[in-house]
């Protein structure tokens, strides 16, 4: 590890395509570079190609076209057992006929390690996930969360530099899942390993990742840090998939520098950040996060100000989730902070709302 360099490319997908039936591409022209020590999450709905990419990296699927490089070497023709990549499976895949200790010892045994060394490493790895007391148990005697920890320890016990995780927390309940998210994140930081993580849960992705690759339809729609992904989605799919957003369809009326004037379907004009539109007449979807739409107080001024009617109020403690009717849409959501004056809003009441042109993004039409 002497030449450890955070910018160094460790795993690379180079123009990778994958088809199962020779007719349809499941993965379409994938290019992705993962640095050493990075925690990269592949996020996407089911059928988006993210698991296929992980399986190609692990060696259980072959790329139909293109190269996958590990540490600068093409690994397309290296069988999975020679890749030295740790993997955590969705259903844990702990061997049911072996004890926890034997499960962990297995990767060391097939590497020809002698018994005393094996035992030390196994106990070490179990200690890492606080499971030392369970070495003699069978997987079926453990709870889901415990099995999860063991699966993690087994993937790490032979000290791989790259660990793949395929929706490892999918079967756990919410509290345990959140707890394990932090635990995995801390292990990643402590061990300095590279992690490629697949999930369809955006909260999980946002919590754990250095970077997130959002997959849809066999392509990476956006590759960015969690903050960038939320704040600056590059297309309507990403905006919709990550977090909540208000979508408004319209047409570009005029363009002024970085901003565009968009005429919505009901005729109202909205000023928005120009992202995916380039000329007048382009169809566009405007995306606005609910917490960026504000109730206008006093004589505050925003680039976009409209009269809205309150349709529904849901009390959620820290904020009031408000559905209002504005710009010809009934499903416009706002998150009104629970400040001392929130009682001023009533269903059926008219309010003046507004938002900044920087928070509203003109994305591709869908």
């Amino acid at each position, binding site marked *: 590890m002497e030449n450890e360099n955070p910018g160094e490319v460790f795993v690379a997908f180079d123009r990778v395509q994958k088809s199962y039936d020779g007719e349809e591409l499941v993965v379409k022209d994938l290019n992705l570079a993962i640095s050493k020590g990075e925690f990269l999450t592949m996020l996407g709905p089911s059928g988006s190609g993210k698991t296929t990419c992980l399986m190609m990296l692990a060696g259980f699927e072959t790329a139909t076209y293109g190269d996958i490089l590990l540490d600068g070497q093409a690994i397309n023709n290296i069988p999975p057992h020679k890749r030295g990549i740790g993997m955590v499976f969705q259903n844990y895949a702990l*061997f049911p006929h072996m004890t926890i200790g034997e499960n962990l010892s297995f990767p060391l045994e097939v590497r020809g390690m002698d018994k005393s060394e094996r035992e030390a490493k196994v106990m070490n790895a179990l200690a890492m996930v606080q499971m030392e007391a369970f070495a003699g148990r069978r997987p079926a005697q453990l709870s889901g969360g415990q099995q999860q920890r063991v699966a993690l320890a087994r993937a790490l016990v032979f000290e791989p530099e790259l660990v793949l995780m395929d929706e490892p927390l999918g079967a756990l309940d919410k509290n345990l899942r959140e707890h394990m998210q932090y635990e995995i994140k801390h292990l990643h930081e402590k061990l300095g390993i590279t992690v490629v993580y697949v999930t369809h849960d955006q909260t999980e992705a946002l919590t754990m990742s250095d970077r997130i690759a959002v997959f849809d339809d066999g392509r990476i729609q956006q590759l960015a840090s969690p903050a960038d992904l939320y704040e600056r989605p590059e297309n309507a799919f990403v905006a919709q998939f990550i977090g909540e957003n208000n979508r408004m369809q319209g047409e570009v009326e005029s363009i002024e520098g970085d901003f565009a004037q968009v005429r919505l379907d009901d005729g109202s004009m909205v000023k928005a950040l120009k992202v995916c539109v380039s000329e007048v007449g382009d169809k566009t979807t405007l995306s606005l996060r609910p917490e960026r739409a504000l109730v206008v107080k006093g004589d505050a001024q925003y680039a976009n100000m409209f009269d809205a009617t309150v349709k529904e109020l849901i009390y959620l403690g820290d904020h009031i989730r408000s559905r209002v009717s504005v710009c010809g849409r009934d499903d416009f959501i706002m998150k009104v902070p629970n400040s001392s004056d929130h009682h001023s809003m009533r269903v059926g009441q008219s309010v003046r709302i507004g938002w900044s042109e920087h928070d509203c993004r003109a994305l591709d039409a869908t």
Partner: protein
Amino acid sequence: MTQSDGTHSGSDAGHMVNGQMVTVDGTPLKASLKRAERKRTLIAFLLVAPLLTYLLISFIFPIGQMMWRSVDNPQVVTTLPKTLEALDDWDGEGLPDEPVFEALAEELAIASANRTVGQLAVRLNYEISAARGALMRTSRSVEDFEPPYKEDFLDAHRLWNDPAFYRIIKREGNPLTASYYIAAFDGTYNEDGEVVLQDENRRIYIDLFIRTFAMSLGITLITLLLGFPISFLMASLPMRHANLLMIFVLLPFWTSLLVRTTSWIVLLQQQGVINELLIALGFIGDDGRLGMIYNMTGTIIAMTHILLPFMVLPLYSVMKTIPPSYVRAAKSLGATPWTAFWRVYVPQTLPGIGAGAVLVFIISIGYYITPALVGGQSGQMISNLIAHHMQTSLNWGLAAALGSVLLISVLILYWVYNRLVGADSLKLG
């Protein structure tokens, strides 16, 4: 207030009286539960009742009958009670005294009159081969015997001069006998009335039991070797292809046993397809035709074919439940494909292997029709001999004893399997 009232009655609802949980009105909780469950129990019982009755009549009762027959020994006791009484005073050395012959004459005359002497003659003939002739001939003339009877008897048949004959009558003068079981294990009584092994050239059953077990074991191993790869393939193929393969596996189930066996005869006989083909290809000469049927080879080939589905079905059903992620996990941990298969996949198929092996072994141990048709001499199994004793020699006692031995050895095997593997891990599809 309402809240605390609710909590109060809640804790009161299941209180203890004399160390017993009771319901609100004070009936014991267990009794109350039993009453609530009674209807369900009754329905469950009604659902199984028809099958239970059927099994009792058609299975449990006949098996009980069979086992009873293997030890039942009424012939001597019912026909010669007085003779047996008189023989009590005999010391077993030399010939018995006059009272024995007197009783014998009287009882043989009665037996001859109501035609029970035949059964007695057959029964004693199992123990000593001249007994049938002695009893039948004597019973025809016993009416004319005059006291003292001893001399008439001694003149009637040479067997009456043999003290061993009286010992046999005395030994078999019990309502229960072990002699069928002794015969089933190739045992016999020697001069001193001790159980010893038969002369070597008269031993049949032990060898046949060993051969039956060995053949069954061989058939089980062959079906496992043939069935494992096909089950593995079926479990990993998509449903559509797997179903097609399954049809081929199940074909033996759907064809008449006789048709299948006949086709094996066509294929395997001396002038059959395979022999002709081998000669045509020059692998063997015309004088070197292979004997593949009417011997052990024929039985093993045909039975393997017939029993293969019993191995494939449990194997397949177990393999289908093994997710591919286990082998993948093993490979990702650095195991070669062979190690992953042998150390991770195969151990998980053990319930299927166990179930298939137990099924095939138990079925083949009692298999009758195929060995009878294609077994010739060397391919016979124990069930063929049981059938022989039931149909030809009419020694039902011995047939029952052999059948019981078979039944008990299967139960022992099952018990051993249960101890080693656990019967609850059996997966029969």
